[in-house]
């Protein structure tokens, strides 16, 4: 079975702190994704990566950055956390090679910024 793991299930941080969310997948997938999930808005793509050291902005990249130094690991960074970044963050991975490929999701990290 494909496994996508995220470093924390719950996280509480203060405004202005730098926050790291880590994601690891064990299926040698080329593509990795970070989403945030908010009630009534579904999942919105923050950033994705289609190869090591490659990244592309998604629909809502402001206030976030990412790092992919190894194929299996994709990190989301909040440079200076703000209360409007309180949300559920979901990581996903998937095979490369065009659309129509399933994505596999981690359990999510619920981040609260106070």
């Amino acid at each position, binding site marked *: 079975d494909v496994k996508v793991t995220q470093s924390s299930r719950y996280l509480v941080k203060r405004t202005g702190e730098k926050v790291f969310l880590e994601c690891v997948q064990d299926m040698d997938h080329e593509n990795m994704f970070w989403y945030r999930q908010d009630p009534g*808005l*579904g*999942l919105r*793509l923050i950033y994705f990566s289609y190869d090591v050291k490659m990244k592309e902005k998604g629909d809502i990249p402001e206030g976030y950055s990412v790092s992919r130094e190894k194929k299996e690991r994709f990190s989301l960074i909040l440079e200076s956390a703000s209360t409007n970044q309180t949300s559920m963050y*979901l990581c996903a991975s998937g095979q490369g090679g065009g659309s129509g490929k399933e994505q596999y999701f981690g359990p999510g990290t619920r981040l609260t910024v106070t």
Partner: protein
Amino acid sequence: AQSVTQLDSHVSVSEGTPVLLRCNYSSSYSPSLFWYVQHPNKGLQLLLKYTSAATLVKGINGFEAEFKKSETSFHLTKPSAHMSDAAEYFCVVSGRHMRFGAGTRLTVKP
């Protein structure tokens, strides 16, 4: 641009009755479409996907969806709801990356 609209934010059914979760999509080319399910405090799980093969797609747990190009719809159905079906369901269209609908919360009453 691609997008999906889930027509109901909340659907409530009784156990043993049919389930219908509605999804309309917009795509400038032939889309790939998915339904994912999210149970409380769990990650998203793929229910089924359409990738231009058969228009009626069967998924896990008795769910199926029909791709109707003329109606730009991809509704999810199940003949008989079970208590364990209570969850949030997301319709997704895939191009360069996935775009999710806002979700439909399914409640199943005993």
